[in-house]
């Protein structure tokens, strides 16, 4: 089978459009797709300080590598920094943070680490231990992590954040919000740039499929930590993930198709209201107080009640 670009020997099926590519053309195509998003959505401007949210997992490891490569190759003029969050999850985050420190050495980028314990007074494990129900803390963790990333990015004096969200994440969010009838958030995950009210959040890989990201990470022999969060088996996200997984074998490029539906629906349902700033922490909030501050307040109350 010849490579669709150079006629060399094809080695990889590029999941985004189904083309068969050789290894060098696959790397180039993947990196160009990220560059295209950066340019088409005007994510960055030269001289900006970009805080890459890193977890040590495959998505943020690929994002860091690709941004590093593109910044050099195309003289983007970006001042790349890394921000990592330690939620305090034993047997998961401790190992992935070790990987973040190895990345810091490889790319020589400044790193800020913020912990739940330091910011909110309790690790995720502490909060879970106080739970009396089986309800997973994933939603709360997501809200707090988002807030911690904001605090870390402010500390790094970043102009913008770069996050490793991919097309599969966006498609999962569309289905999840559909199931919850959360019309306001339906298309939020599909956008490459959000949160203009505070430090904006850019997602340069939002159209990259998980399959291509895993292939890229493997073939580039990137160092990353691949394991399931210890709380993941209880996460609601497993429902859309299973739906997408089952459809993936039958429909070509299914995450991108679901994203497209999310984008169309969100435009139709757009009420024109934009989030404001939280009166307590200055983060993004749809009401007067943001979700993170509400979660911290609820957890504080639970801690006092023992």
């Amino acid at each position, binding site marked *: 089978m010849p490579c669709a670009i150079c006629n060399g020997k094809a*080695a990889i099926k590029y999941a985004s459009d189904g083309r068969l590519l050789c290894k060098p053309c696959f790397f180039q195509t993947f990196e160009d797709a990220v560059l295209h998003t950066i340019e088409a959505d005007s994510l960055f401007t030269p001289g900006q300080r970009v805080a890459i949210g890193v977890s040590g997992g495959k998505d943020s490891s690929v994002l860091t590598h690709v941004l590093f490569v593109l910044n050099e190759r195309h003289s983007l003029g970006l001042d790349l920094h890394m921000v990592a969050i330690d939620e305090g999850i034993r047997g998961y985050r401790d190992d992935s943070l070790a990987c973040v420190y190895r990345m810091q050495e490889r790319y020589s980028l400044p790193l800020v680490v913020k912990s739940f314990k330091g910011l909110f007074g309790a690790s995720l494990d502490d909060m879970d231990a106080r739970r009396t129900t089986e309800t997973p803390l994933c939603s709360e963790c997501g809200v707090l992590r988002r807030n911690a990333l904001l605090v870390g990015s402010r500390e790094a004096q970043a102009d913008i954040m770069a996050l490793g969200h991919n097309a599969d994440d966006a498609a999962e969010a569309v289905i999840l919000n559909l199931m919850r009838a959360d019309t306001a958030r339906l298309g939020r995950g599909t956008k490459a740039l959000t949160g203009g009210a505070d430090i904006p959040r850019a997602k340069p890989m939002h159209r990259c499929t*998980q399959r291509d990201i895993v292939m890229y990470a493997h073939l580039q022999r990137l160092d990353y930590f691949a394991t399931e969060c210890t709380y993941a088996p209880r996460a609601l996200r497993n429902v859309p993930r299973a739906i997408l997984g089952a459809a993936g074998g039958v429909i070509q490029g299914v995450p991108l198709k679901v994203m497209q539906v999310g984008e169309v629906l969100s435009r139709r349902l757009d009420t024109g209201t934009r989030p404001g700033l939280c009166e307590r922490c200055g983060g993004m909030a749809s009401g007067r107080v943001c979700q993170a501050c509400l979660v911290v307040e609820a957890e504080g109350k639970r801690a006092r009640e023992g």
Partner: protein
Amino acid sequence: MDPLGQEAMATVKVEYRAGLELDFGTRDATVPIEPGVTVLALAHSLKDKDGNTALIEGNIIRAGILVLINDCDIEIEDGVNTVVKAGDVVTFLSSIHGG
């Protein structure tokens, strides 16, 4: 297995990556193969550290597991029906494990 031990000499190197190394308790394994064995049949024969066929679900390769032979995507060849040859490096990658 061939009683004379001749066919037993044929092996492939199996790589468990992207999270599967945790399920299988190893990153690399040398696995004997029968002549003409397919990727699907090989995947059926591989047991994780709990003795389960972790690469298989409903008689097919689990959704989200990617397979490469000598760094070449099996989707370029015959998918799970691609025949594995002695000396091949067969890589199983999980795209299910967290990012």
